[in-house]
């Protein structure tokens, strides 16, 4: 039997790791609903498994998504994960070929170079020696980068790196040591037995020239094994838990388990799958504009994981979705944030009994301006002008003041209160018999689309205006204005509406592109998702954003959200306009027939 006491730390560590990880996974699987469970079972024996494996390969090993956001960081993660994975695989093949056995002790391939000195008996031995050295070198570059990143994260184009908890420290430092120790152990062994290749062999020769390699190499194998053991034991208590968890997460997602608004098992798995890569910290404007490095998902999820979420952390987030957009693990960060806010929210029932009896008008289209739009009257004014011009039969549902859509309450974890408002608005919408519901507020848009279950088309005005133009119901004049368009968070990342507003602008004006557009759009700072930020902080964010957006001196800074407009107006020297205003202003004045405005029509009636 091939054995040496030094393999014990490694072997015991590995067993403990397996035990804890399977215990945790088992707990999670048990907690799934029976529907999810059957989905999971089905997925095990379907092509989903294959899809999942492919994704696991791409994301857990190659870290393709991190690559896309930050190539240097991607390389670091890939060299560590994929390199280590290959070391294990190739090492196993090597030992199998050598021993002729299918099953070997788990430590045998890992410490192969300690146990095996006579290379000549191994088929393709030179090839394996070369390959293993190459892989070790590959991993070592990752380790060097990782150490470098800890002390100098700017090299990665990142302004920050995450702070560590105690479990993380053990895991991180032991991880740093694993491969350098392996490298030294193999090199010193090679100095004695000449087992190394171009990397460990050469190093061994050099070390052997001034060190008593034969006396000391054994201790390095001990150290290497210890480092592995410590790493394995601390792994489940550290952020490295993300390694096994991400694999499971990808499988579970592929099996069709979807995130819900509640904090559930899937959320818990997501929380554990975060490697704290720090990408979210870099994308978050609370960090970049306000230097607030406390609230980002990297930290927030850690707090969730260790059950120590504080109210001020949970609520101090704009729910802008920038972090979620770039999170390489694809965690539904806003969902988790909002779900956790429920722990602090005071949620009542029967609050809005005072709402008056419904007054409903029959119409084909409902226009709902939204609360905020009442404070940017040029938007609603433009919309009524446009709708009148296009002779749409519409009902201006909240002309005399809105009943809130419920979204702000939901964002703050007050679902019961929101439900009451939703119920009230929904009744009115359905009673009107309209086929299309148009709103000017992207914040409303999302909730009308996703929570109301109206069964009719819910559109943002930018979509609806484009439709009117396409249907030739609106004739617009060309302008030579250069317009930069700001994607409101809720409209862009929130509802995926990027193209309609652009097309609308492009048809009649020059659209100027900007680095911070579409998925990479910034938040104006006006977000309703955050209840903690002060007015001054919001101003700083707005100012930074305006500076970015107007860097090419456009004629107009266009947006499609009343809140964005409000945030920008006082910070911008460039004129800020909603897309509805731009359209209303360029309505062709040469319309043959006189437009009878709704106002006149009502006056006549």
């Amino acid at each position: 039997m091939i054995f040496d006491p030094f393999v014990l730390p490694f072997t015991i560590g590995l067993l403990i790791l397996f035990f804890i990880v399977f215990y945790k996974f088992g707990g999670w699987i048990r907690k799934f609903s029976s529907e999810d469970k059957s989905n999971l079972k089905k997925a095990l024996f379907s092509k989903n498994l294959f899809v999942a494996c492919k994704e696991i390969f791409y994301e857990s090993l190659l870290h393709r998504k991190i690559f896309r956001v930050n190539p240097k960081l991607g390389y670091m993660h890939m060299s560590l994960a994929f390199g280590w994975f290959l070391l294990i695989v190739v090492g196993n093949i090597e030992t199998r070929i050598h021993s002729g056995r299918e099953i070997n002790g788990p430590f045998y391939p890992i410490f192969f170079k300690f146990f095996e000195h006579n290379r000549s008996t191994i088929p393709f031995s030179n090839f394996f020696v070369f390959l293993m050295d190459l892989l070790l070198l590959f991993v070592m570059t990752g380790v060097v980068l990782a150490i470098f990143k800890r002390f100098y994260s700017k090299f990665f184009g990142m302004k920050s790196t995450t702070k560590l908890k105690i479990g993380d420290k053990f895991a991180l430092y032991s991880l740093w040591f694993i491969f350098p120790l392996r490298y030294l152990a193999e090199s010193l062994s090679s100095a004695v037995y000449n087992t190394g290749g171009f990397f460990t062999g050469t190093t061994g020769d050099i070390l052997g020239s001034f060190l008593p390699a034969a006396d000391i190499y054994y201790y390095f194998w001990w150290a290497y094994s210890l480092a592995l053991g410590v790493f394995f034991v601390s792994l489940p208590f550290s952020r490295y838990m993300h390694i096994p968890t991400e694999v499971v997460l990808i499988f579970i997602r592929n099996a069709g388990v979807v995130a819900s608004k509640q904090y559930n098992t899937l959320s818990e798995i997501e929380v554990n799958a975060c490697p704290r890569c720090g990408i979210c910290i870099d994308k978050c404007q609370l960090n970049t504009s306000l230097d607030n490095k406390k609230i980002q998902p990297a930290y927030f999820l850690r707090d969730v994981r260790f059950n120590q979420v504080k109210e001020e952390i949970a609520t101090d987030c704009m729910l802008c979705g920038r972090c979620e957009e770039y999170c390489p693990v694809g965690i539904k960060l806003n969902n988790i944030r909002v779900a956790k806010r429920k722990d602090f929210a005071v949620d009542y029932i029967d609050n809005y009994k005072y709402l008056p009896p419904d007054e409903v008008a029959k119409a084909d289209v409902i226009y709902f301006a939204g609360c905020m739009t009442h404070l940017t009257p040029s938007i609603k004014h433009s919309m009524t002008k446009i709708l009148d011009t296009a002779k749409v039969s519409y009902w201006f549902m909240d002309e005399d003041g809105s009943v809130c859509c419920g979204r702000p309450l939901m964002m703050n974890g007050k679902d019961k209160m929101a439900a009451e408002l939703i119920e009230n608005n929904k009744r009115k919408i359905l009673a009107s018999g309209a086929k299309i519901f148009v709103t000017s507020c992207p914040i409303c848009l999302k909730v009308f689309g996703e929570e109301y279950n109206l069964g009719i088309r819910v559109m943002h005005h930018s979509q609806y205006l484009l439709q009117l133009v396409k249907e030739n119901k609106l004739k617009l004049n060309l302008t030579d204005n250069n317009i930069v368009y700001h994607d409101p968070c809720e409209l862009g990342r929130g509802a995926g509406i990027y193209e309609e507003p652009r097309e609308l602008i492009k048809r009649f004006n020059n659209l100027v592109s900007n680095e911070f557009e579409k998925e990479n759009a910034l938040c104006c700072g006006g977000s309703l998702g955050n209840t903690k930020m002060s007015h001054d902080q919001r101003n700083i964010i707005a100012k930074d954003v305006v500076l970015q957006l107007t860097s090419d001196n456009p004629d107009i800074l266009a947006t499609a959200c009343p809140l964005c407009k409000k945030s920008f107006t006082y910070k911008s020297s460039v004129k800020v306009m909603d897309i509805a205003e731009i359209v209303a202003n360029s309505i062709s004045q040469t319309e043959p027939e006189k437009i009878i405005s709704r106002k006149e029509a009502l006056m006549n009636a």
Partner: protein
Amino acid sequence: MIEFGYNIAKDRQIDFDKNDKRISTYVRENEPSFKTCISCGTCTATCSAANFTDFNFRKLQLMVRRGETLEVKEEIKKCMLCGKCYLACPRGVNTRNVIIQINQAIEKIENHDI
């Protein structure tokens, strides 16, 4: 006891010394902008809820500051958290957080946490 529906003695003046200022203190600590309100009334004028009922956010804040907190709990439920008041406030009072903090203060008082 006969209930007359109102109590003349109670309402005649604000007994500031006796009044319960815990909510006020709590909100001041947790949302400092609460202190800068100048009672201009813009929030009430724009308020979505006040459009339909006699909810008055300016007055509510003032009553909390004066320790007249009896009706606050029922009143504050009328708010829809829509945020119009914040957008309109000339002093940058973080109105929505004021509401949330008042809610929490009430809950904490009921749970004897403060």
